[in-house]
C-alpha cells in the first residue's frame, strides 16, 4: 500500500487530528449568522434608539441623545400602552394554557396512538392557513352582524365588538397550537407508571393531578407560555384588524416607522418588548422550561 491516499481521506485524517479546528469550521457559519444577522441587528437597533430624525424631511440625524428614552419614560401614554400590551399578552397566555392543558392531556394520555397522530395534525392545521385570513375571519365573526352576536342575541347578549376583548380572543385563537404542542410533548414524556403509582398509594385523581402531573408538566406549560407571551407582545396586526381604537406596542413601532418615519423612536419603543422578554426568560429559566423547548 504505497499508493497515496485520496485527498478526501487526507482531509478527514487532518481534521481528525485537529478536533478544535474541525469544531471551529463547523460552527463558523452559524456563529457568523448569529453574530451578524441576529445580534448585529439587535445592536443596530440599540444604537439607532439614541438618534433622532428631522421631522420634516424624515432624515435620520445621527446626534447622540437620550431624548427618545426620556419621552418613552415620561409620556404616560407609552406606559399605558406597555401595560395594556403586557396585560393582553398575559391574558392570552393564561387562556391558552387553560384551554391547551386538557386538550394536550387527552392527546398524550387518553388517545390511541393512531388518534394521537391525527390529533397532532388537527392541532397544526390552523398553522397552515394564513394569519391574515384567520384574523379577518375573526373580524367578520365579531362584527355586529357576525356569527357571535347572532349566537348570543337569543340570550339578550351582544358580542364583544372590536376592542381589547376581541384582540385577546383573536390572539388566543392564533397562538393556541403553540401552547398545545409543547404541553403535549411534555405530557407524553411523563411515564404512566408514575400516575399508576400515585393511584396505588391511594391518591384520588385530583390529588394525582395536583401532586404528580402538574409539577412534572409545569416546565412544558412555561415553555408554551414563552411562545404565546412573546408572540402576543410583538403583535400589531390582529389589534389593527379587530382592536377597534386600541393600540399595542407593535402599533407604536409600526406607526413611528410607517407614519412618522421616525425610525430612532421606533427602535426605542422596540427595545421595550426585548427587555420584557429578557426579564421573562430570566424568571422562567429557573423552572427548567428552557430545557423543554
Amino acid at each position: 500500500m504505497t499508493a497515496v491516499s485520496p485527498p478526501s481521506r487526507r482531509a478527514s485524517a487532518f481534521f481528525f487530528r485537529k478536533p478544535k479546528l474541525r469544531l471551529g469550521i463547523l460552527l463558523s457559519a452559524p456563529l457568523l449568522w448569529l453574530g451578524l444577522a441576529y445580534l448585529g441587528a439587535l445592536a443596530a437597533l440599540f444604537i439607532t434608539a439614541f438618534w433622532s430624525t428631522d421631522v420634516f424631511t424624515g432624515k435620520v440625524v445621527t446626534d447622540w441623545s437620550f431624548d427618545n428614552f426620556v419621552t418613552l419614560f415620561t409620556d404616560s401614554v407609552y406606559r399605558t400602552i406597555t401595560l395594556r400590551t403586557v396585560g393582553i399578552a398575559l391574558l392570552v397566555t393564561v387562556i391558552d394554557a387553560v384551554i391547551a392543558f386538557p386538550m394536550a392531556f387527552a392527546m398524550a394520555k387518553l388517545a390511541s396512538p393512531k388518534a394521537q397522530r391525527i390529533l397532532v395534525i388537527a392541532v397544526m392545521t390552523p398553522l397552515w392557513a394564513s394569519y391574515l385570513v384567520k384574523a379577518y375571519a375573526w373580524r367578520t365573526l365579531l362584527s355586529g352582524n357576525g356569527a357571535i352576536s347572532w349566537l348570543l342575541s337569543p340570550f339578550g347578549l351582544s358580542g364583544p365588538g372590536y376592542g381589547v376583548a376581541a384582540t385577546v380572543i383573536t390572539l388566543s385563537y392564533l397562538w393556541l397550537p403553540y401552547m398545545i404542542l409543547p404541553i403535549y410533548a411534555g405530557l407524553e414524556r411523563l411515564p404512566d407508571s408514575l400516575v399508576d403509582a400515585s393511584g396505588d398509594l391511594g391518591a384520588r385523581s385530583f390529588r394525582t393531578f395536583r401532586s404528580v402531573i402538574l409539577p412534572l408538566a409545569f416546565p412544558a406549560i412555561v415553555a408554551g407560555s414563552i411562545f404565546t407571551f412573546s408572540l402576543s407582545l410583538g403583535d400589531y396586526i390582529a389589534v389593527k384588524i379587530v382592536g377597534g381604537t386600541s393600540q399595542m406596542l407593535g402599533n407604536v413601532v409600526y406607526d413611528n416607522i410607517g407614519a412618522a418615519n421616525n425610525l430612532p423612536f421606533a427602535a426605542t419603543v422596540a427595545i421595550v418588548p426585548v427587555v420584557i422578554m429578557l426579564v421573562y426568560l430570566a424568571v422562567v429559566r429557573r423552572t427548567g422550561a428552557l430545557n423543554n423547548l
Partner: protein
Amino acid sequence: MKNRKTLLAGLCGVSLLLAACGTSGSDSSTGSAPGAQGFTPPKLAALTQLGQPEGQLNVLAWPGYAENGSNDSKINWVKPFEDQTGCKVTVKPFGTSDEAVTLMKTGQYDVVSASGDASLRLVASGDVEPVNTALVPNYNDVYPFLKNKAWNSVNNVAYGIPHGWGANVLTYRTDKVSPEPTSWSPMFDVNSPYKGKIIAYDSPIYIADAALYLMAHQPDLGIKNPYALDDKQFNAAVDLLKKQRPNVSEYWSDYLKETQSLKNADAVIGTAWQVTVNLAKSEGAPLGATVPSEGATGWSDTWMVSAKSQHKTCAYKWMDYIISPKVNAQVAEYFGEAPANSKACAEMTDKTLCDTYHANDAAYAAKIQYWTTPIQQCLDGRTDVKCKDYGDWTKAWTEIKG
C-alpha cells in the same frame, strides 16, 4: 476569550457601517435663506427632454388612481398605457400619505400621486424633483386654479402635475342616522347619539378635521387655517379628539376595512372618501355623503417624479396619460373626485359628475382645506407665534389613540 473579541469586532463593524449610512443624509435642506414656504428644497434639475421609454414603470398611487383590473376586471386604465408606450406598469397602492412618504424614500418608485400633506415633505427631502411641464402636453388643459399651488410648487417651480381634488366627506348610514347630518357635530359632540359607531381617519393629519370643526364652533381660538396651529389651538384640537376617542369604534386607514364596517353597520357615521362611499353603496349599503356646513378637509393630488427614478421617460408619459381628458375622467368617476383636466368633464359617462364635484368651480375649490404638511412657520402668515410641526402632530396622534 479570543472568540469574544472577534464577536465584538464584528459588532463594531456593523455599527460603523450603520453610522456611515446614517450620516449620508445630513446635507439636508435646512440651509440659510428659506423660501416662501419656510424651507429651501435641494437643488435638483427637471428633465429637459424625453428619451426612449425604458419599458418599465413603478407607480405608487392612492387606491383607485391606477387601476389595473385587479379589483374589477372591467376597470383597467393601466393596460392601454402599457400598450401605447411599452412601459410595463407595477402599481403599489398606499393607505396614508405617511406611508407614501416612507415608501418613496426607498427609491423603488418612479411616480407617486402625492397629496398636499406629503408633497412638501417629498420636495424638502429631495425624494422628488421639479417637473418640466413643457414635456406634459396635457398640462395646458389643467384648471389654472390647481397650478403652482403651495402643495405642488416651491417658489413657482412646479414639482408635479395636478391630478384631481376632492373633500373628505361626512358619510352616514341613511337607515341609522336621522336627520341627515349637515354638520360635523355628530362626530365631535361628546353626547353624540352615535356613540361607539363613529369611524374616523387614522392619520395625524386628522387633527386638522378637529381644527376645522373648532374654526366654526370656537371662533375665539382664532384658527384661520387648520394646518397652522399654535400651542393653544393645537391643544384644543387634540383635546377635542381625545374626547371623541371613547365614541369612536375604529380608526381606519384601509378604505376596504372602512367599507366593510359601514356595510355591516359596525360604524354608522364617519369621515370617508367618495370612493369608499361609492364602493359600499355598490355593495348594497344605504349610505349618504355630504360636505357639512363647516366645510371639509380635502386633498389636491399631484403626480410627482422620484429623483432616483430610472424610468423618467415612462414617468412623464404616465403623467401625461393619466391626466389626459379621457383617463382623467375615468379615474375621477371611479374615485369620486373632481378631475384636474378641464376637458375631462366632456368625457364623463355621467355628465352630472362635474357639477356634483364642482370641478370647474374655483370658488368651491377654495373652500376646501386641502391637506398640507404642517411646519413650524405658520402657514396662515402669522410670524409672532410658532406653529406645531408634523412631528408634534404625529406624537399627539399616538397620545390621542392612547
